[in-house]
């Protein structure tokens, strides 16, 4: 048998846990309040840290006076974060860090610090269309530019192109090449070095237009149907319920113990070592649970670094630095906005021929990445012209937000295509089917999913052309959308030990964001060893255990499942080697079933797990599993999902209510079905939330966020979700291996809901969130009122 085959998963009917609902293994700890998070970490002598923050969106620090704070009793350490002379680019940026004996005291001390600022002009509003005539920046790129681009998730291909065309102002060795995607590092190494140009500050950074075919000609072709529209969605926040933060303490003069609330446990030491001045090996990061991240918690951030620095100053005492809700929403999470004027054309039969868009958006001071529009079909639309202008403003720094750039691209694209389908007089489902080849390799998956979604939603039976004709102000409509995502597993390693007494321990330095990582690891190991999850101890969440990649981009499940499977198979086979002689058989003839090691097909020739392990002698079995990255057949990339929404709109009050949503989702081989479904339900709800409610509202004059709370930064509540139906494409694509699921289902809801509202009320509401103000304005425009 080829070496790799032994790791392949058995078929569905031979699995007890993998692909089934088995219950979240950490469920009871969470529901009874015993699960511990960074925020819950209490230690003797714990100090509390807090930041003095800039009240201005754009300013230069002139003077800092901390003397009064330093004199206060209970204040243990003060650190200047940004020195006088530094320029501040968003309100809430950190200026001074303080640690004190308790939280009230540290908040008092923060208020006692006096900082003088020179205010500079700011821009925080981004929805207005930028001028079209600004030439793209062709000046060579500095390291800061690259960092900005990375922060804003500018697609790798685009970054490579810009590096090649514009050149760089620094020496390649100065760049953190080992932390860059390989293609970008390669481009940097071969880029032309040029002297830096003095660039005047600019609010708008247009990128060069990207084209394919001849868009102008395609729009002028005879017999094409053209639809035009404006679509967009504002900056929103992550609003993790556990705010960002960390507890750090020096266990001795050169060892640091950190509890950063993070999506990347293994990555914390490497990111902190240089700034705190000790080798990464001397830093230990521990985290049992994390209360939400959604892409915003990969680095130690200033709170991680400064809790360590303050701790050092305070003689090593642990310093807890957790952001308040207002701080969280102002500085710790921002999904870039995206707006676009779009023109699309199709032949009368519905075949899409051309796309033309002028888009813009902001991710704060770094501008904003261009979402991959037209979404799903970009590589295959015969003609397009895509223009994008990054708005550089002071709204706060962008962070990856669950499926970076995809919900934006999806809304703009699917809404534009839905409008085109309407113009063509086509049912959107038929329109999407007609153009399905444009989606490329996943076309067959969508085609498999369409009928399931259709049936669960009753689409074909209930769909009506735009504008519900039912009398009365309540109008009902259906909308749909599709999405994809990569989601190949990250690098991940696993140590699995079987002791002679039969106990089994797994060690992995991974984290469980609530996605069910622990449950999935135990499902794989339990199935492979023929045990129950309860018989296996999982040690995780600590840099003392084998490394695992960051939990972002839906990379965790692929990475950890493969590493676990490999370690489990190897350990099991090592056990078979020891036990085979006892059972008078060969290792190849053995199997593990329900806590027994037995000869295949001979139930009588069996040992209990405990008896079998006792045959090992005194030496435990230790197996190390490591996935094979890009060439690992146990994991894969590229999922397909279809979603449909059923909404009612009160056209007098402008209120949108979700009646029902259907998500049909593929992710290759489903490892943990129940937690996978929960991911989809959760994503639908998060999607409903950004479709209807979420918006980071900025004040133009003060440059501050006006809704840094959970009262006017609205999240969907339990009454806002309607009926949710999730269908995982189980057992259909198992052969593709395991693919990540965290991001994909959150991509489509905005588009599906926007399309459903258009179908209900007969007019497009251009921007999310679909608030009464916007719905009424769209209806007013339809009636010719100037709303």
């Amino acid at each position: 048998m080829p070496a790799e085959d032994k790791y392949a998963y058995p078929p569905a009917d031979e699995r007890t846990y993998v692909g089934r609902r088995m219950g979240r293994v950490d469920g009871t700890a969470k529901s009874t309040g015993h699960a511990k998070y960074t925020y819950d970490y209490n230690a003797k002598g714990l100090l509390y840290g807090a930041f003095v923050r800039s009240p201005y969106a754009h300013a230069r620090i002139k003077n800092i006076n901390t003397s009064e704070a330093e004199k206060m009793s209970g204040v243990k350490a003060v650190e200047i974060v940004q020195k006088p002379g530094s320029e501040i680019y968003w309100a809430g940026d950190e200026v001074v860090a303080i640690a004190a004996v308790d939280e009230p005291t540290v908040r008092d001390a923060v208020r006692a610090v006096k900082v003088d600022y020179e205010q500079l002009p700011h821009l925080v509003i981004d929805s207005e269309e930028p001028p079209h005539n600004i030439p793209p920046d062709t000046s060579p790129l500095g390291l800061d530019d690259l960092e900005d681009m990375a922060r804003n998730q500018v697609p790798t291909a685009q970054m490579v192109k810009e590096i090649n065309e514009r050149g760089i102002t620094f020496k390649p060795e100065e760049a953190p090449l080992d932390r860059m995607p390989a293609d970008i590092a390669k481009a940097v190494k071969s880029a032309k070095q040029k002297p830096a140009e003095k660039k005047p500050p600019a609010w708008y950074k247009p990128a060069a237009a990207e084209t394919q075919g001849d868009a102008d000609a395609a729009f002028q072709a005879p017999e094409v149907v053209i639809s035009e529209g404006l679509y967009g969605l504002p900056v929103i926040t992550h609003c993790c319920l556990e705010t960002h933060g960390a507890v750090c303490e020096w266990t001795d003069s050169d060892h640091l113990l950190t509890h950063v609330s993070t999506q990347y446990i293994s990555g914390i030491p490497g990111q902190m070592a240089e700034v705190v001045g000790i080798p990464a090996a001397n830093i230990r990061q521990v985290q049992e649970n994390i209360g939400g991240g959604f892409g915003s918690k990969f680095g130690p951030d200033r709170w991680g670094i400064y809790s360590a620095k303050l701790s050092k100053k305070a003689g090593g005492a642990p310093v807890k630095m957790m952001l308040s809700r207002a701080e969280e929403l102002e500085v710790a999470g921002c999904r870039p906005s995206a707006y676009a004027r779009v023109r699309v054309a199709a032949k009368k039969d519905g075949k899409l021929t051309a796309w033309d868009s002028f888009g813009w958006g902001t991710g704060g001071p770094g501008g904003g990445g261009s979402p991959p529009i037209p979404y799903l079909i970009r590589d295959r639309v015969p003609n397009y012209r895509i223009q994008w202008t990054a708005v550089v403003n002071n709204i706060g720094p962008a962070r990856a937000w669950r499926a970076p750039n995809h919900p934006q691209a999806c809304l703009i694209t699917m809404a534009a295509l839905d409008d085109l389908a309407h113009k063509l007089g086509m049912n959107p489902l038929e329109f999407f089917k007609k153009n399905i080849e444009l989606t490329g390799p996943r076309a067959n998956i969508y085609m498999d999913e369409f009928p399931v979604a259709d049936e669960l939603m009753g689409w074909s039976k209930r769909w009506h052309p735009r504008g519900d004709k039912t009398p009365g102000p309540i109008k009902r409509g259906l909308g749909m959308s599709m999405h994809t995502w990569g989601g190949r597993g990250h690098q991940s390693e696993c140590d699995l030990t079987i002791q002679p007494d039969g106990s089994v321990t797994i060690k992995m330095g991974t984290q469980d964001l609530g996605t069910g990582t622990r449950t999935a690891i135990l499902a794989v190991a339990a199935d492979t060893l023929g045990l129950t999850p309860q018989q296996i101890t999982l040690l995780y969440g600590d840099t003392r255990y084998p490394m695992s990649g960051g939990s972002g981009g839906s990379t965790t499940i692929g990475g950890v499942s493969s590493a676990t499977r490999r370690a489990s198979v190897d350990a099991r086979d090592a056990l078979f080697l020891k036990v085979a002689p006892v059972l008078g058989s060969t290792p190849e003839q053995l199997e593990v079933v329900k806590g027994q090691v037995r000869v295949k097909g001979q139930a009588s020739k069996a040992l209990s797990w405990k008896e079998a392990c006792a045959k090992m002698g005194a030496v435990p079995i230790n197996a190390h599993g490591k996935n094979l990255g890009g060439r690992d057949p146990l994991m894969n990339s590229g999922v397909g999902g279809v979603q449909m929404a059923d909404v009612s709109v009160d056209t007098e009050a402008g209120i949108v209510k979700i009646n029902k949503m259907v998500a049909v989702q593929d992710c290759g081989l489903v490892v943990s079905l129940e937690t996978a479904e929960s991911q989809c339900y959760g994503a639908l709800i998060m999607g409903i939330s950004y479709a209807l409610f979420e918006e980071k509202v900025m004040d133009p004059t003060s440059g501050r966020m006006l809704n840094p709370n959970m009262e006017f930064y609205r999240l969907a509540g339990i009454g806002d979700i309607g009926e949710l139906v999730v269908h995982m494409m189980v057992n259909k694509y198992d052969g593709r291996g395991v693919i990540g699921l965290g991001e994909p289902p959150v991509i489509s809801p905005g588009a599906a809901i926007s399309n459903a509202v258009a179908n209900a009320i007969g007019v497009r509401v251009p921007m999310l969130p679909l608030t009464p103000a916007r719905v009424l304005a769209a209806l007013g425009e339809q009636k010719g009122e100037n709303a």
Partner: protein
Amino acid sequence: MIQFEYLSPSSVKQALGLLSPNWGDTEVLAGGTDLLGLMKDFVLTPKRVVNIKHVSGLEAIRSEGDGGARIGALVTLDRIVEAAHIRQNYPALAQTVADAASTQIRNMATIGGNLCQRPRCWYFRNGMGLLPKTPDGKSMVVEGDNRYHAIFGNEGPAYFVSPSTIVPLLIAYGARLRIAGADGERELALEKFFRIPGSDAEREHDLKPNELVTEILLPSAKGVRAANYEVRQKASFDWPLATAAVALRMNGSAVESARIVMGAVAPVPWVSQEAAQAIANKTINEQTASAAGAAAVSKARSLSHNNYKVKLAAVAVKRALLVAVGQTVPDLSTAQRGGGA
């Protein structure tokens, strides 16, 4: 919160004695659902907090012989919802209170605190002042994001909206308020309690810093058809964008007299004579209710971002009228809004 000294007086007199005659020095703590948030945000920085929850005599709901009611200032919202007398005689009130805030807040918040709660204006709550100004003296609200601000009574400098969702209905019922102060007790119509501040030194209600609201007096609602309608975006636990409360006395099927009060539209609960006149002596149906809604907003003046609220206020008035006479109104979900005759 800054440090404060904390006292729990046991009588109204004692409480009054502990309150400073100047705003800012002391604050009254009832349920705390509003006060503590304001203190955490340093919007209020009292040096003394006077907890009135142990003050005797303010925690009862009493029924009057004629069917009227007196509600002590310390009665929590959940008790109003559950009180048999209120459910029978003021069903719209029970429903409206049940729809306010969340279960937890209703268990904590007092009706006195509800009347005295401070505006939710995001400039105010972010520490920029109740009448916030830009460095060059313009209103930050007018220049800025005023999507939730006033469409009536917004000649300046006040642009916030009166927050309580309960008060408009109480005013429609003709509620009066008893207030205790150093010089004894006074009584006034609830609508007179609210006023539009003209300067930063004033608050949005007619209460001296060393006075206490002690009781709400509800006249008998026999023969009154009342309803409250709130336009809220979320199904529950969400500040409404506009509300309307109506209390009607009928003569057969025609309206004899009407009190129509809008909420979340002005710095004070906004009593609409226009709407009341529009409906006088008429039978309420879709057309007349619509006309009353239109009349209610005929003098509205929107700011740069809140034109939609004019429409919502009209819809709220129209639907409140229809609910009051037992007609069905469009409803996206049963949990969404209060009603009841």
